[in-house]
């Protein structure tokens, strides 16, 4: 098959992917019929095309799975769909507890929530079903943990209505040319100190570059991604690691950073 990206290759990749996931509800050919036209139009190299195929496959399969879960009239598909969802939850619940009794309880709670949710109405974005189920499982584990400790916690009513609004993403940014000179000098001083701080405290080149580009130069993740030839989610994940690292610094280092960010004069000695 070489390195070419063609329909035969796409069929092979989809089949391999579905078998690897243990998903049997939808025939691979149905997924390929949606995935291939999208991939064919993008002229991707093999590695990028593989990722694209897998992304489209889980999202398209997710839509079919969701629709089957919401259609009890088609008994065979309905039962198969819920069987697959249960299998996913059983596999994932081990992340939250090693106790088999607790695992079963948490899975049951999650399944009940999902049944209730899908009976009421389906997801507005059915392609998100796997992520929605993961979040439901996570919150079920939290709720179970609370009830087990006889602490009444608020049960999270999980919904998917937050579909986001289209609009411009304008981060409030400074217009340096409008600032007095002394503020521009202060900004430059802060930039230099922050750069040095990141160099000292962030463990990888990528984290330092992303921190500089995002928190000093003010570039959005998508723009940083283009500059670094990465995907936006890779930059956002790196940014999350940077924030976690900085929030977990020693109290002394955190204080230094806070003073820097607030434009305060650092303590000497």
């Amino acid at each position, binding site marked *: 098959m070489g390195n070419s990206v063609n329909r035969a290759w796409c069929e092979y990749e989809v089949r391999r*992917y579905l078998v*690897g*996931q243990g998903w049997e509800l939808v025939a691979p050919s149905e997924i390929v019929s949606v995935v291939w036209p999208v991939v064919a139009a993008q002229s991707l190299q093999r590695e990028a095309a593989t*990722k*694209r195929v*897998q*992304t489209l496959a*889980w*999202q398209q399969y997710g839509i079919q799975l969701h629709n089957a879960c919401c259609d009890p009239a088609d008994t065979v598909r309905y039962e198969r769909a819920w069987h697959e969802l249960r299998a996913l939850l059983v596999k*994932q619940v081990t992340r939250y507890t090693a106790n088999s009794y607790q695992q079963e309880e948490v899975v049951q709670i999650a399944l009940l929530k999902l049944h209730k949710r899908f009976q009421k109405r389906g997801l507005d*974005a059915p392609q*998100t079903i*796997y*992520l*929605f189920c*993961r*979040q439901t499982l996570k919150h079920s584990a939290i709720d179970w943990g609370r009830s087990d400790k006889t602490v009444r916690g608020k049960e999270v009513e*999980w*919904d*998917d*209505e*937050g*579909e*986001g*609004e*289209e*609009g*411009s*993403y304008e*981060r*409030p*940014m*400074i*217009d340096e040319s*409008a*600032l007095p000179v002394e*503020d521009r000098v202060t900004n430059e001083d*802060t930039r230099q100190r*922050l750069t040095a701080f990141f160099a000292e405290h962030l463990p990888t080149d990528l984290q330092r570059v992303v921190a500089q580009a*995002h*928190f*000093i130069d*003010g570039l*959005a993740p*998508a723009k940083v991604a283009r500059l670094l030839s990465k995907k*936006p*989610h890779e930059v*956002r*994940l790196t*940014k*999350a690691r940077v*924030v*976690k690292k*900085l*929030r977990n610094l020693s109290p002394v280092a*955190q204080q230094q*950073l*806070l003073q820097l*960010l*607030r434009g305060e004069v650092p303590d000497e000695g």
Partner: protein
Amino acid sequence: MKGKWLAPWQQLLLYMERETPAGICLPHLEALPLFVTDELAGKKVDSLHSAFAYHLDTCATCLQEYFDLTEWTLETLYV
């Protein structure tokens, strides 16, 4: 900083200083699965989900949730 100007590093200050109450985050967290799904599908999420993208810029809790869900998706749904 004077007035209403917001330097890029002030976003980091929000992450460092602010503990967002859970009630504030909940509606944003409901948008998280679609945000991650669309981002991995190559959509321009900064404009498609601008409110959530902006919230991610200010809330360390939601940024961590984003991290957890995206990592989970990459580990579980990609081979």
